[in-house]
């Protein structure tokens, strides 16, 4: 396990103490269950760990005055795949971006509540979002390789983060191998990343992300632009990666969540008394339990295809 000392996340020239944030929970909380798995489960993988690397508590995300997601609480377990599912507009991608402060890049976006990473508040004043993103990488919905060579795509992260690299060629090869792309590209490392097929591009983006050795990889609907074969490859890859990395994946595809994840969070969109629509976490539990024995009626309706 990677141990992160309190200084690491902080701006280098800024000494400060970390105050552990532990906000008391509010009343109406979604059903969060990380208890032992139901042995009759058919969906999902048996969790092998229940050590949370991240915890969300009372997390709301605002765009300007609009509250896009309200009061989310869930853990992210170490070296497990956590899936976020739910209908469009339920805020799952918004929550995902709150986990590595990508929301900072959206003007007017604001996160309330506490997101902790190894006990440190990610949104504390002295936390450097650059450092956060070096540890918590992200793969996007649409493959977005840089308009550079395959090699440079992978080497970009280590270069900009100033990683100490003995041999960049080895690092690039390792990352590409880990992303199950090496055999397909080893003879054309100098050609443009954009010359690859969509599925290959997405695996290149994964290789690029793991090249900086993050602890957590966030994936925002990584397969939605891919065909079923490419999707299957990415899913296989996620299994492989889960032995070394903590993965959080947002997906529209319930079957995908059921196939790959250990834990699943189900979000939905609600309309409140002011007629404002906002996302809410309905249920979080082990994937097997959520798909076979959901605690909430709305989860059941969704997974049985009655809405969404």
């Amino acid at each position, binding site marked *: 396990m990677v141990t992160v000392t309190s200084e690491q996340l902080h701006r280098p020239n800024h000494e400060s103490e970390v105050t552990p944030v532990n906000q008391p929970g509010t009343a109406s909380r979604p059903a969060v269950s990380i208890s032992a798995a139901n042995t009759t489960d058919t969906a999902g993988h048996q969790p092998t760990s229940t050590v949370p690397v991240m915890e969300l508590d009372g997390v709301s995300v605002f765009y300007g005055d609009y509250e896009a997601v309200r009061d989310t609480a869930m853990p992210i377990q170490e070296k497990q795949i956590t899936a976020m599912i739910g209908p469009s507009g339920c805020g799952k991608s918004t929550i995902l971006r709150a986990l590595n402060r*990508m929301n900072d*890049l959206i003007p007017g976006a604001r996160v309330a509540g506490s997101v902790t990473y190894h006990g440190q508040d990610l949104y504390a004043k002295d936390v450097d979002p650059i450092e956060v993103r070096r540890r918590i990488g992200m793969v996007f919905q649409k493959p*977005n390789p840089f308009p550079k060579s395959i090699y440079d795509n992978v080497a970009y992260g280590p270069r900009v983060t100033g990683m100490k690299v003995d041999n960049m060629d080895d690092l690039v090869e390792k990352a590409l191998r880990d992303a199950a792309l090496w055999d397909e590209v080893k003879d054309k490392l100098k050609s443009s990343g954009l010359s690859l097929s969509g599925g290959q591009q997405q695996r290149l983006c994964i290789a690029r992300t793991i090249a900086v050795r993050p602890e957590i990889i966030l994936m925002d609907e990584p397969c939605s632009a891919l065909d079923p074969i490419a999707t299957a490859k990415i899913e296989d890859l996620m299994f492989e990666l889960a032995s070394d990395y903590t993965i959080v994946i947002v997906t529209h595809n319930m079957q995908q969540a059921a196939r790959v994840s250990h834990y699943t969070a189900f979000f939905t969109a609600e309309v409140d008394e002011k007629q404002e629509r906002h996302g809410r976490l309905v249920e979080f539990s082990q994937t097997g339990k959520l798909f076979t024995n959901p605690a909430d009626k709305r989860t059941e309706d969704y997974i049985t295809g009655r809405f969404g």
Partner: protein
Amino acid sequence: MSAPTLTSTRPDPSAPGAALTQRRSRPGDLAFRLAMQACLVVAFGVLTGLLTWVLIKGWNRLDSRLWTEMPTGLTSRLDGAGVQSALVGTLWIISLVAVICLPIGILSAIYLEEYADNTRWYNRLLELNIQNLAGVPSIIFGILGLGIIARALGFGFTITTAAIVLSLLVLPVVIIATREAIRAVPQSIRQASYALGATKWQTVSRQVLPSAVPGIATGSILALSRAIGEAAPLIVLGAVTFITFNPNGLDSAYTALPIQIFTFITRPQAEFTELAAGAIVLLLAIVLAMNSIAIFVRNRFEKRW
């Protein structure tokens, strides 16, 4: 119930094959097409007419004398005259303009596009003013330069003054072109870079700028081409009617091709007009060469996503 028919205006809807055959051209389509073609002919015709006229007029003077000999004011010496000092002056000015205005313009554009917070009133005011500046007549820049740069700041009637004023004149063009180029870089590239832990400057310098280079280069060269043809501000900035020496430094007196052309044209003798036509062809050749470079750069380095 039958499906709504799309062929009601066509002959014999009962024959399925006939319904797809092309009807005679619609009159509206035809009229619009003719109008567009007429506009094209006018625009292109005027340009070709002017070019041909200038070429014919200046044909006799299109030789090496143009750039090896100095201008003259005397009809008797016209045979051995050229526009060398004006050509050298123009090259001096344009190089200086590039040195002054490209860094300022490109950095301003990067700031406005990548760093400035658009919700702040002062940034919006800046943007509005840059748009407005692009539309200010060049003679106004000339007068401003005369008052502030030549007189108040004491740069005098020198090449430096001319270059500073022309830089100010084309700065908005460079800024606007650069901003367009930067804006054309997809947001997903920036996000990918940030998600890997790159800083803002790393993202801008390693991803955004390289991708925007073709657009920036094209816009910059076109802006410089505009500066090359400007005569109005130089008239008030002490570009002399003709000089028989080449400028030799930043504080040198100077003349430039547009000014030289203007001077020749105002002379009554036909020989001067001829020399002016030759100089016009030379100026056009420089501008065309620069535009070709712009097109080459754009095609060579264009990125596709």
